[in-house]
């Protein structure tokens, strides 16, 4: 009898939780420490990206002639750079630039990669073969080299950096998606859809994609992390956002010449990149743990 009393509430709570799949993910994030902290950390970074320009103490492009290469002080919390600009303000403005580029690039990868991966998996045959061989060729080049080539062709700017990083990550993403979609393709409900006479497009949108959404969320999160690194790398070698736009990679590259005299120039942008990328990877890792049926 006592056992019976025990089992009933457990079952009903399980039901309530399962019947709301839309809030399921958020609930699961809150249950795990790592997921929770990285989620809130990410939220904070996004908020900073949005409100950065309003909370920045100074104009990020204004030169303060009385303060060239000053260390952290009351007036300039993180110091000033070689031409007297406030590093904290530049970092805050740069959050938006970096996040925009990374998120837009990942969105591009997500849309194109999902489309290519899912259609190749579902249609199979020659289409699949041709697509995957093209992806293999692109994958043979390291992502950053491919991105460099694209920027070189399009010209250095923030938008082109975004496009380059987006395109460069499509091959890896689409191959991962294709693998996931192949497992769903064999499921009974896909065959049932075919027997009903649904169009391929309908099956892809309603049967395949919802069932690989977990994997898509995890991969996209991970790709945002590498897109931030890619953005900074392009900025560092001068092919990303052009000065005077405050961009972390550009700031890092400006600071590298003064490493001995003014450590704060390169340290703070580097720290910012590290924190953001670390947070994104943590979140991706935590999401993967949540979605992994074995855990």
């Amino acid at each position: 009898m006592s056992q019976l009393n025990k089992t009933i509430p457990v079952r009903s709570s399980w039901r309530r939780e399962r019947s709301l799949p839309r809030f399921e993910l958020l609930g699961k994030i809150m249950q795990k420490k790592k997921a929770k902290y990285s989620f809130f950390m990410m939220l904070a970074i996004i908020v900073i990206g949005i409100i950065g320009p309003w909370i920045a103490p100074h104009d990020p492009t204004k030169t303060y002639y009385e303060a060239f290469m000053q260390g952290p002080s009351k007036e300039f919390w993180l110091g000033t750079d070689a031409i007297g600009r406030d590093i904290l303000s530049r970092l805050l403005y740069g959050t938006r630039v970096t996040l925009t580029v990374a998120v837009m690039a990942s969105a591009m990868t997500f849309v194109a990669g999902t489309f290519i991966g899912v259609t190749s998996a579902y249609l199979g045959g020659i289409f699949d073969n041709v697509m995957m061989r093209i992806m293999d060729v692109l994958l043979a080049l390291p992502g950053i080299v491919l991105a460099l080539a694209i920027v070189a062709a399009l010209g250095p700017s923030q938008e082109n950096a975004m496009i380059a990083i987006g395109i460069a990550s499509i091959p890896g993403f689409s191959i991962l998606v294709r693998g996931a979609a192949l497992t769903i393709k064999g499921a009974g409900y896909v065959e049932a859809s075919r027997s009903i006479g649904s169009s391929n497009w309908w099956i892809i949108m309603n049967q395949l994609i919802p069932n690989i959404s977990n994997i898509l969320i995890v991969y996209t999160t991970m790709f945002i992390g590498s897109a931030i690194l890619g953005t900074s790398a392009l900025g560092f070698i001068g092919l990303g956002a052009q000065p005077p736009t405050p961009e972390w990679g550009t700031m890092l590259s400006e600071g590298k010449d003064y490493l001995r005299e003014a450590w704060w120039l390169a340290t703070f942008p580097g720290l910012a990149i590290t924190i953001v990328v670390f947070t994104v990877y943590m979140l991706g890792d935590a999401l993967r743990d949540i979605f992994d049926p074995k855990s």
Partner: protein
Amino acid sequence: MTTPLLVVKNLQKRFLLGKGWFQEPSYIHAVNGVNVTVNEGETLGIVGESGCGKSTLGRCILRLIEPSEGEVVFQGRDIRMYSKSEMHNVRRNMQMVFQNPFDTLNPKLTIQHILTEPLIAHRIPKEHRQSLIEETIEIVGLSKRHLARYAHEFSGGQRQRIGIARALMLRPKLIIADEPVSALDVSIQSQILNLLQDLQEQFSLTYLFISHDLSVVEHIADRVAVMYLGEVIELAKKEELFQRPMHPYAQSLLSAVPVSDPDEKRERIILTGDLPSPSNPPTGCKFHPRCWACMDICKKEAPVLKDSEGRMVACHLY
């Protein structure tokens, strides 16, 4: 009752096993020259052991798997010649109920969404959709309030009802039921079978009922085809087949059905040997290595399905 709705003529399906540069391609003959006729309003049961090609046959009829050879004549026309759009129209009249209700309902969609799919696929006007869905879900014994739920919230029997509702949405003429009850508990099996029978009366449906369970087939079928290694070896009315099976394989199969009367004496025919590989079938009659009535001719010449005492048997004994 006697107009044929579906005629399957010499249907063959080969699956490519392997092909090398200097080697002949090798095939598995999953379905090897099957001829069956399904009359309007009847239930044709198809029985046979695992791997004999029952499910492949069902899928070939729906062209879920493209048959290698043969004809599938549905309502007087060979659907194998149909183009994609014509085939799309035919699917409205041929639907399938699948074996595993845990696999055939998308876990990410609500029942409402699952049942809308056939209506979207066949462009039923939006204003009719909701009433059709509500009507159909109640016909299969569930209620409107179940529509907002997801498949995992239902038991196996309920899921199979949803699967049946999905097949029924477009009011088809032919339903191919591929082992619809074999994944269910015995108590649920009979409910689903009775539901299928009620629906058959209500919508004058025709069933092609694939099963490995003889007692299930005995319950629901009008005529039964017994398959062995991709071939139909006996086709007869249910009563005739179950009372007096003619083909030795059918005899052994039926002797394996448990009897409820403990006093009844029945001789159990136990077959020796395994099911031969369909990629390398025996010569002559495919059943001869396991047959106890094997004659010399059986090893050389394959018997054809022919009329014998008003039923069809493929055996040299008759």
